[in-house]
């Protein structure tokens, strides 16, 4: 090894040193050089002797005081300005029953998805995470509050508490990490933007070179389409998913997944039609997701490209009660609905990114029992779509300013041109984002 490498480097040394010194290799200069080399030898020897006990960490970082064990705190400050050509006060997407919590978009200036996050290791076995969302209307919502095992080993990860479900691709991402101001239509209609659950999540990572992750969740059914059943000892909702991922060469990487979710809905508000209605029955959702990222040589700081898409299909079947306040008639109702989006984001130079997203939903055609068929439409001759353009600028990795334009055709006869301006800033300890 030694000889070989000396053999390799010696000509290099000679080649480099020769032209530099040959022109003026006076005796004094040579003597100076020799002295310098001797001094260097001494320094190296000193380094060597100092290094004999250098396998002991040189750390002398002060870590004392009452707040030394305080958890990591991160604060996301975010706000939007929205200007729309249509009113969104009583937002409905044609053919879909949105979550009763969905109040559509507010115009003008709004406090966006500002959130406070606190996390720390609890002990060698557990880590705790809590995220509180500052709600635009005032108040503080508990977005996440879970403990997570850190020492199960063998690729197992268990979460307990309130968490965003791991299904799909976007569901687990917090609002400040979204590439657009808002979620895709399919997330808004199927998951009330983001499926949050109170329950247990078990994930297992296979010991393979290819990334293979399997996940299972049971919970109360807190988030839409679940109806937050507190009357039932069993699980209100379950989810299963598998994620696969790898690199293709040094510049490409991808992740793809399949997800299944099922819940039993009890007295769910179903206001897709004009009156107040209730639906009780089974809801089963299957989803496919993929994301592909490209960065030249894997260096995403200068330019990078991301393409992602997800597809969800939901079958609901049970009993629908039409007009609970009036005629109050109940009969069978079942429908299969679906939706997808495809989006890409291109960082064309450091700090600047542009994005394009297309959304589409299919409200399906329902089987409607005879008793309610006169009032409940079986299908809609309308396909909700939306096209969104985004441009954002990040002065640093902790700040982002965004402009977004959308043409929203999710409501029949109410084509809407939407303009958003947004800031997303991150203060304090801010961990990395998932892929």
């Amino acid at each position, binding site marked *: *090894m*030694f000889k*070989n*490498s000396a053999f*390799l*480097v010696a000509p*290099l*040394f000679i080649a*480099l*040193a020769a032209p*530099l010194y040959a022109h003026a290799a006076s005796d004094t200069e040579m003597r100076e*050089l020799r002295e*310098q*080399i001797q001094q*260097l030898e001494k320094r*190296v020897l000193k380094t*060597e002797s100092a290094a*004999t006990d*250098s*396998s*002991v*960490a*040189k*750390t002398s970082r002060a870590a004392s005081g009452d707040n030394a064990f305080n958890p990591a705190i991160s604060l996301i400050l975010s706000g939007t300005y929205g200007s729309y050509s249509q009113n969104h006060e009583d937002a409905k997407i044609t053919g879909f029953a949105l979550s009763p919590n969905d109040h559509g978009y507010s115009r003008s200036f709004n406090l966006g998805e500002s959130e406070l996050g606190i996390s720390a290791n609890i002990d060698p076995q557990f880590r705790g995470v809590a995220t509180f969302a500052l709600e635009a209307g005032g108040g503080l919502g508990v977005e996440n509050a879970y403990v*997570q095992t*850190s020492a*199960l*080993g063998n*690729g*197992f*990860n268990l979460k307990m508490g309130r968490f965003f479900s791991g299904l799909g691709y976007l569901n687990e991402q917090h609002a400040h990490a979204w590439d657009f101001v808002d979620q895709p239509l399919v997330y808004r209609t199927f998951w009330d933007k983001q499926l949050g659950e109170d329950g247990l999540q078990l*994930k297992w*990572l*296979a*010991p393979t*070179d290819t*990334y293979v*992750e399997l996940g299972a969740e049971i919970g109360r059914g807190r988030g839409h389409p679940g109806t937050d059943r507190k009357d039932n000892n069993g699980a209100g909702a379950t989810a299963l998913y598998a*994620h696969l*991922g*790898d*690199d293709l060469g040094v510049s490409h*990487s*991808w*992740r793809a997944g399949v997800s299944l979710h099922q819940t039993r809905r009890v007295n769910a508000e179903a206001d897709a039609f004009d009156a107040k209605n209730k639906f009780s029955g089974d809801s089963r959702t299957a989803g496919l997701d993929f994301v592909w*990222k490209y960065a030249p*040589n*894997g*260096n*995403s*700081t*200068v330019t990078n490209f991301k393409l992602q898409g997800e597809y969800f299909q939901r079958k609901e079947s049970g009993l629908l009660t039409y007009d609970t306040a009036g005629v109050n008639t109940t009969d069978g109702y079942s429908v299969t609905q679906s939706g997808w989006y495809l989006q890409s984001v291109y960082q064309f130079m450091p*700090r600047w990114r542009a994005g394009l997203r297309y959304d589409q939903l299919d409200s399906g055609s329902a089987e409607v029992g005879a008793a309610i068929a006169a009032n409940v439409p079986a299908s809609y001759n309308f396909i909700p779509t939306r096209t969104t353009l985004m441009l954002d600028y990040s*002065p*640093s990795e902790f700040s982002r300013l965004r402009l977004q334009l959308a043409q929203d055709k999710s409501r029949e006869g109410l084509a809407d041109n939407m303009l958003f301006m947004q800031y997303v800033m991150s203060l304090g300890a801010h*961990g*990395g*984002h*998932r*892929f």
Partner: protein
Amino acid sequence: MRNSLIIFNILFISALGLPAHAALNIFACEPEWAALAQELAGDKASIYAATNALQDPHHVEARPSLIAKARRAQLLVCTGAELETGWLPVILREAANPDIAEGKRGNFEAALYVTMLEVPARLDRGEGDVHAAGNPHIHLDARNFLPVADALSARISELDPANAAFYAQRLHDFRQKWQAALLRWSALATPLKGQPVVVQHRSYPYLHAWLGLQQVAELEPKPGMEPSAAYLSGLVAQLKARPARMVIRSAYQYARPSQWIAQRTGLHTVELPFSVGGNAQAGDLYSLFDDTITRLLAGLK
């Protein structure tokens, strides 16, 4: 030549994830530590380099492939000092491998074994992307490889005691070769001493401390901030008044700012490999520093 080819092949094969009949599974965060681990463990380890020299080690995607590799790693070799804070914690969490968790024997941080430079007196993001533990680019002072090698070799032996004698011999050989190389590099780099240079990012305090270059300006107004045109114009004026010899950037950095300033000031731009694999010449640790010094010397002309 043959040696570096062999090392390159080993790195390449382990990067592909092919079995290299190895005892110890090492996950190296940066290519310089992959190369050092290779020097110290030879064929007794299977080494995966999580990043290459053309990637900014501050900003790496927590890719599924990295999580899968970390899942099976027995030893994580990283710089530490918060260099990987943007991606490694996610990977460790998702990999669910307690052997390499922070504080465990399977988690090795090189920065713990060297004297840190530029430890900030004031921690404030208003100062840009500063690291509380000091500047993390410790590998650009080649002298730092000696204490890191001692500690890493000890750690490898601890995790694979059956081959301790083999590792001790590898360490001995490495130290001898490295010391010879340090002498050679110091002599070679003598003309660089005291030369004023401009840097694109604050990556080089260890290089300056080692070779004696004198940094007179940075192209980033604050670490991690892309320079504005106004800031660069101010720099041009400053450099016209007090000229420097060259403007230095690393292979993974955006070329435009240093080219812009070079065009307006007539400075040479020098693109350093930064780590093993940063250019065709820097194939191993030795050629990394050979090439770095060669390029800096060329910048003086």
